[in-house]
C-alpha cells in the first residue's frame, strides 16, 4: 500500500460465508494480512476494516475521523474517533463514504452492446464508487414495455456485479413522442420513473398526460429539457466559442423554454394529480437553474440534477482549453477569453466534448455549482454516455453526443473540493443523500429500499466506498472499466483513487494495486 495512504489503513479478508476467518485485529497504520482467498467481485465481504480514516455520513450531516468494520456483509460498527485517537487525521487522505447513487446513466444494453453492457457498465460504476445506478430507457428496443426490463435483470444476474441496477421506463412508446408507453405495466415491473431521455418529452400535451398517468403510481417524469426547434442542428453552446469555431449554436433559450414549459405543465397537472412529480436532469444553464430555484421556492414538487462535466468543464474546451471551469472565471464572475489567455493547448473539436446539453460557459458552470450549494440542484448525476470509437472518431458535428463519465465523477468533484469551491461533505452528499432524497420524494417508491437514506448506517448491509484523496490516478483507456473511452479527461490525473466499493454487503470493486500490495 502506498505510504501516502497512511494513516487510513484498510484490511479486508474472507470469502463468502467465511466470516472472521482471517479478521485479526491490528494496530493503526499496519498493513493487514490478507487471506489467501479474498472475496471476489459479487461475494459477500466476510470481514473488512478501515482504521483511522475520514468518515463522511451525509445523513447524519457528520464527518470526521473514524473507523468502520464490515462483518458478513453488514456494516457492523462505525466509530467516530475523538481526542488523541483522532490526532493528525484530516479529510485529505483515506475517506469512507456511503456508496454513490447515479440517477442518470446509459448502459446501452440491449441494443448497443458494442458501446457498453450491463456488465461493463456495472464494473465502471463500481470503479467510480457507485453502488446504485438508474439506467435510461433509450436502448434498442427502448425500455417501453416490461419485457425489456426482464432482459436487463437477466443481464444483471448473469453479470454477477452487486451494483444495484434500477431503470427508468420510456414515457412514449418507442420513445417516438406520440403515444404513452406501457406505463402501468412498467410501474408494476418496478421502474423508478419515466423518461424519454436523449430527447425531451416531445410535446406539452404528451408531458401533461405522462405526468398525470405516472402520478397515479406516484412516479416521476424525468425530462431532458430541450426545445428541439431552437437547438436544431446545434453543435455547441451558442456563444463566443461557437461563434469563433463556426459551430451551430444551442442557445440558452432552448433550455429555458423547455424548463418553463415543463414547470407550467407540472403546475397545471398538480391540480388534478397531487402525486405528479417532475425531475429535470442535466440542467446546464444559469437561467434554467434560476427557473428551478423559483419553482422550488413556490413549492412545486420539482427536483433537478447537474452533471460533473457541466460543473467542471466549459465550452472553451472545444477550442482546446484544458483548464477547469472555475479557472476560466474572471474576477467579476464572467467567462474569460481562452484566446486572450493563451490557454489553447489541445487539438480543437475533440469529439469527446460533444455532449447534449452542450458544455456551457464558465459562468454557467459556476451557476451549476451555486445551484448545488444552495440546494436548487439536488444531486449530481453523471449522464454516463459511452460510445464506440466508430461513433466518436468522426467530424465534430457528426459525432454522437455523450461523455463516459461514471469513473471520473468523483475525481472531478474532488478537483472542486481541492480548489476550495465545494466542501467535501457537500460533494459526497450530492452523490449519495442527494439522489436518495430525490427518490424519497416520489410517493410510489418513497417507502421502498431504493429510497433508503444512504448514510453510514450500522447494522445495515454495507454499501460504501473507500477512496484516497491523496492518491492520484491517470485517466486512460486502460484505467476506464467502461467500454466507452469517450472521456475528455483522458490523459489527466485526478485525485481520489477508489480503493474499494462494497454494494449491498458484497464486493463490487477493489483497487488491484491495493489488493496486490496487501496480499
Amino acid at each position, binding site marked *: 500500500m502506498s505510504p501516502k495512504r497512511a494513516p487510513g489503513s484498510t484490511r479486508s479478508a474472507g470469502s463468502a460465508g467465511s466470516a472472521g476467518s482471517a479478521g485479526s485485529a491490528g494496530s493503526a497504520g499496519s498493513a493487514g494480512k490478507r487471506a489467501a482467498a479474498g472475496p471476489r467481485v459479487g461475494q459477500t465481504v466476510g470481514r473488512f476494516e478501515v482504521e483511522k480514516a475520514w468518515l463522511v455520513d451525509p445523513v447524519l450531516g457528520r464527518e470526521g475521523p473514524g473507523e468502520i468494520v464490515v462483518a458478513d456483509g453488514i456494516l457492523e460498527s462505525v466509530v467516530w474517533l475523538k481526542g488523541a485517537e483522532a490526532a493528525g487525521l484530516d479529510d485529505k487522505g483515506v475517506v469512507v463514504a456511503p456508496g454513490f447513487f447515479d440517477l442518470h446513466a446509459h448502459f446501452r444494453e440491449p441494443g448497443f452492446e458494442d458501446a457498453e453492457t450491463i456488465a461493463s457498465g456495472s464494473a465502471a460504476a463500481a470503479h467510480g464508487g457507485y453502488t446504485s445506478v438508474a439506467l435510461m430507457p433509450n436502448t434498442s428496443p427502448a425500455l417501453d414495455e416490461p419485457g425489456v426490463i426482464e432482459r436487463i435483470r437477466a443481464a444483471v444476474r448473469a453479470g454477477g456485479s452487486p451494483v444495484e441496477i434500477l431503470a427508468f421506463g420510456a414515457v412514449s412508446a418507442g420513445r417516438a413522442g406520440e403515444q404513452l408507453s406501457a406505463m402501468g405495466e412498467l410501474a408494476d415491473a418496478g421502474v423508478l420513473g419515466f423518461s424519454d431521455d436523449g430527447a425531451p418529452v416531445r410535446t406539452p400535451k404528451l408531458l401533461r398526460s405522462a405526468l398525470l398517468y405516472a402520478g397515479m403510481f406516484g412516479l416521476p417524469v424525468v425530462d431532458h429539457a430541450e426545445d428541439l426547434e431552437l437547438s436544431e442542428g446545434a*453543435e455547441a453552446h*451558442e*456563444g*463566443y466559442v*461557437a*461563434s*469563433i*469555431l*463556426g*459551430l*451551430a*449554436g444551442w442557445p440558452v433559450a432552448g433550455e429555458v423554454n423547455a424548463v418553463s414549459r415543463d414547470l407550467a405543465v407540472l403546475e397545471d397537472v398538480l391540480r388534478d394529480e397531487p402525486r405528479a412529480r417532475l425531475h429535470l436532469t442535466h440542467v446546464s444553464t444559469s437561467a434554467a437553474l434560476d427557473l428551478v430555484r423559483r419553482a422550488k421556492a413556490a413549492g412545486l414538487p420539482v427536483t433537478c440534477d447537474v452533471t460533473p462535466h457541466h460543473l467542471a468543464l466549459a465550452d472553451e474546451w472545444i477550442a*482546446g482549453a484544458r483548464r477547469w471551469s472555475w479557472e476560466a472565471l474572471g474576477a467579476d464572475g464572467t467567462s474569460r*477569453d481562452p*484566446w*486572450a489567455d*493563451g490557454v*489553447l*493547448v*489541445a*487539438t*480543437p*473539436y475533440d*469529439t469527446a466534448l460533444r455532449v447534449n446539453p452542450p458544455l456551457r460557459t464558465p459562468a454557467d458552470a459556476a451557476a451549476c455549482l451555486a445551484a448545488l450549494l444552495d440546494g436548487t440542484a439536488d444531486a449530481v448525476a453523471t449522464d454516463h454516455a459511452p460510445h464506440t470509437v*466508430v461513433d466518436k*472518431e*468522426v*467530424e*465534430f*458535428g*457528426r459525432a454522437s453526443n455523450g461523455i463516459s463519465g461514471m469513473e471520473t465523477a468523483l475525481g472531478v468533484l474532488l478537483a472542486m473540493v481541492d480548489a476550495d469551491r465545494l466542501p467535501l461533505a457537500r460533494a459526497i452528499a450530492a452523490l449519495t443523500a442527494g439522489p436518495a432524497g430525490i427518490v424519497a420524494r416520489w410517493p410510489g417508491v418513497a417507502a421502498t429500499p431504493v429510497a433508503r437514506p444512504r448514510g453510514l448506517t450500522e447494522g445495515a448491509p454495507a454499501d460504501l466506498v473507500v477512496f484516497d484523496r491523496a492518491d492520484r490516478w491517470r485517466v486512460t483507456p486502460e484505467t476506464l472499466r467502461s467500454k466507452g473511452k469517450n472521456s475528455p479527461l483522458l490523459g489527466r490525473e485526478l485525485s481520489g483513487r477508489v480503493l474499494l466499493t462494497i454494494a449491498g454487503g458484497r464486493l463490487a470493486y477493489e483497487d488491484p494495486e491495493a489488493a496486490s500490495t496487501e496480499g
Partner: protein
Amino acid sequence: MSGEGSAAVAWNHRHLIDLDVLTWPEIELILRTTDEMKGVLARPIRKVPALNGRRVTTLFYEASTRTRVSFETAARNLSADVVSVAPATSSVTKGESLVDTIRTLEALGAEILVMRHSVSGAPYLAAEIFGGHVLNGGDGWHAHPTQALLDLYTMREHLPGGDLHGRKVAIVGDILHSRVARSNIWSLTAAGAELWLCGPATLLRGFDRWAAAWSGGAIPGHGRFNVTSDVDAALRDADVVMALRIQRERMQGGLLPSLREYAARFGLNAERLTLAKPEAIVMHPGPMNEGVEIAPDVAVSGRAVITEQVANGVAVRMALLYLLAGAHEAAHAGEAIR
C-alpha cells in the same frame, strides 16, 4: 504589428487550418513568399521545380470549382504531382469515414492534403490522423485561411504602401455562415485594419458578443472590429468593400424575407458605393449572385478587383504549399496540431 519583426521569421507550422495560430510576422512571411510566386507567374513558363516529385492530394467534400482548380494549378506550377479526390467518384459515397479515407490517401502516398469539408473542424481530425501536412481549403463555417490571405494580399496591392493600418474594410453579407468572414477577422485585425462586419441581424447573430469580447484588443496582436446592420455606417469612407454570397437556403431557414429585400437593403450597388472612398476597391470571394449581394455593374466596374483575387489566389496557394512542404519534418515531432 505590420512592419514589425518581418525579418528572419521561419515557417514552423506543419499544417495550416486556421489563422488564429499565426503571428503577424508569419503572415508577412506568407505575403512575401506570395510576392515571389507572383514573379513566377509573370514568367513565360509559369513553372518551377520547387515541389518536384512531391504529392499533393486535394480532397473536396464540398463542390468547388474555383478553389480546387486554384490549389491544383498552384501545385502544378510548383511541379508537384496532383491527385484530385472528389466524393462523388470515391468510396466516400459508399459510407467510408473521413478517418479511413485519410488513412487510405496516406497509404497511396499523399504528402500534402488540401481539404474542403462541410463540417467545421474536420481538418483537425484529418491532421490528427495524417502523417503529412493538412492545408485547409475551407471547413464548414469555421475557416478559409487561403481565401483570407489572398484577400489581404489583394488589399495590400491596392493600398498605398501596402499598409492596412487604419484602413476601413467593410464585409457585407451572410457573416454568420461565412468561413471567409471568420478567417478575415483574424487576418485583418492582425493587419491593423478597421474592420466592419455588416449584414441583417439574423445573419450576424453572436458576432456582436464576439466583437465585444475582443474590444480593447484582448487577443494579443489583434485589434478590435465592429459589427453593424447599418450598411451606410459600414460603407462610409471605406477603403475596401467586400460582399459575401447570400444563399437561397437562408430564406427557407426563416432568416431572410426575400433576396429582393436583401438586395434592396444590403446589396452593393453604385449608389450605395458612393459612401465609400472614391478610390475604394470592391471584392467578392465568389461565386457571385449578381443582382443580389452585388449589382452587375459594380461587379464589372473598374473598382472591382474580383478577378485579381482569383489570380492572387494561385500565388498565395503556391506560397503556402511551398512553405508547408519545406517545413522541416523533424521540427514537428510531437508538435500540437494547433
